[in-house]
């Protein structure tokens, strides 16, 4: 029995999410709640037979008492308000904003850890891309230090990202430690305006000291395979390299092109991860 879900936010992320949710058999999309009646997202929703509301989240939820789970693709400040509305109705939330009110989830690493949490957040796109690799290495042996460099196309970094760069690097670095298991983490973000736009790329450097190179590289390949199962455009750009106790690897993320362009892998990685989390919540309910 598919679980009734709603999407809050009819911008680029909410609209891309809509296409992914409609494809997912475990989820039944009840509607999209936006605030701009002329937004393309709401128009697309209507054209697909999805209820598209521009009267605000509270009115939307009143109209749809069957909603069990919601994705918040609005903004950190709006999420604070939505979180209260959703909690009051017992609606689970997957938060794609940087509000970070609930625990962080990276599907490959801790998907089952917070199945009872009223809300979870997805940290950042950089975390989604790199924490699985660092966590896989931590499963083999101690990772003393993990550093990641996310490079994204300027066109895929909107005003929200641009005014939150510090938050991006700080929360990504923290997740390398708390979810990735590194003793110390660091994150760097670079924007590149090249045309045609570049695909999201992430360099991962892990100080693995005496960890056997074969096992380390094997763990990376396995992690990439698992992540690609829920983010099909996620792939290695080169084989992982090990030298002088440091493992270096580069992962690229190509978007599915559902609504966001293919180069916006940094946004697609969030919508894909969000759907995976919601799917797991839905399975959890069915058990």
């Amino acid at each position: 029995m598919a679980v009734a879900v709603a999407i809050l936010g009819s911008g680029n992320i909410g609209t891309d999410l809509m296409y992914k949710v409609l494809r997912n058999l475990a989820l039944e999309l009840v509607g999209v709640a936006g605030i701009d009646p002329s937004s393309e997202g709401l128009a697309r929703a209507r054209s697909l037979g999805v209820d598209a509301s521009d009267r605000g989240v509270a009115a939307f939820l009143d109209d749809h008492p069957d909603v069990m789970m919601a994705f918040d693709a609005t903004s950190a400040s709006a999420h604070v308000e939505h979180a209260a509305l959703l909690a009051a109705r017992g609606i689970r939330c997957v938060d794609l904003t940087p509000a970070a009110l609930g625990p962080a989830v990276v599907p490959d690493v801790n998907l089952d850890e917070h199945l009872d949490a009223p809300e979870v957040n997805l940290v950042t796109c950089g975390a989604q891309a790199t924490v699985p690799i660092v966590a896989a290495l931590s499963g083999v042996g101690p990772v003393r230090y993990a550093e990641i460099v996310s490079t994204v196309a300027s066109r895929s970094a909107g005003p929200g990202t641009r005014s939150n760069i510090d938050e991006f690097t700080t929360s990504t670095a923290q997740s390398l430690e708390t979810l990735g298991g590194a003793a110390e983490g660091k994150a760097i973000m670079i924007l590149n305006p090249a045309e045609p736009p570049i695909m999201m790329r992430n360099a991962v450097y892990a100080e693995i000291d005496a960890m056997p190179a074969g096992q380390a590289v094997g763990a990376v390949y396995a992690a990439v395979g698992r992540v690609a199962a829920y983010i099909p455009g996620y792939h290695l750009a080169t084989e992982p390299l090990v030298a002088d106790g440091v493992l270096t690897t580069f992962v690229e993320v190509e978007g599915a092109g559902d609504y966001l362009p293919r180069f916006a892998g940094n946004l697609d990685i969030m919508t894909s991860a969000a759907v995976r989390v919601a799917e797991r919540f839905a399975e959890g309910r069915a058990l």
Partner: protein
Amino acid sequence: MSDVIAPRIRLLDSTLRDGSHGIKHRYTPEQVALIAGKLDEAGVHSIGVGHGDGLGASSIQFMRSLHTDDQLLTAARRAIKRARLAVTFQPGIGTKRHLERAADLGADLVRIATHCTEADIAVQHIRLARQLGMDVHGDLMMPHMTTPEMIARQGRIMVDAGATGVHIMDSAGALTMSDVRARIAAMLAEFGGDAEAGIHAHQNLSLAVANTIVAFEEGATLADACLAGAGAGAGNCQMEALVAVMEKTGRSTGIDLWTLEDVADQIVRPILTTPPSVDRTTLTQGFAGVPGSFLHHAFRAAERFGVDARDVLVEVGRRKSVGGQEDLVIEVAAQLAAARQSAAS
């Protein structure tokens, strides 16, 4: 002699910041104190100190520095009496807490740098630096990669946020003299009434001093330079040569040339393990438009993968790399080696 008083041009030294790239970030606090003290004596306007990529940049991506920002800034602060102590900051690398720490350590000026089309990521940091009581200049990197008009618009964003000057940072040393003219002219047409324009020239095409003079001819009143031409790639505009040319062309500097020459030759040159030069690799950087800071990374990757550093740099340039993408150097070298191997088999 003309009665017109030209605006005073101020020279900002980067020996202890951009120069750090040239020695793989191995300055010691003692060297910093000595050189900063001499630069202060000579009368430069500001003295930049720290890792080549700025606050918080000591990392695997940008190479680790031998000493921390804290140690180097503390040594410099003690040694400087009248010049401004300057730090460099790149949003996406450093964070607000690095700015707060720099203010605590007594930094007077922050150079906040973004790629030349991405000034809006610096707005919150420019505002914070001003609130913390520091002066701010905006630095637009890789200015050869966009138009003079875009440079001017991006500079305006930085000025509106609180920058009192905006520099074009020719990170790849790829600008020709007419490129410089067009950009400085556009910048001053856009914000000349509200802020100063500056140039940070690199020597990769052997044009650094000339480019700096051309910038002055267009009305720039700020310029970065380094003793002995130290710096990333083929090095920065050589401070002593610039001062000499300025004096020969009737531009007063207020700087003592012989003091500069002495500290450059007696103290800085012995520290530069590889003297900056326009050679086949650094010339390739200028020609291909690749950041000078990639030089040692390219050598290291070329050696590791058995490929030619120039091939790596040309491909990195072809992929339109911006500053900060040192990881691309490794990936390109690895891919070139793999392609060569599969072509051979």
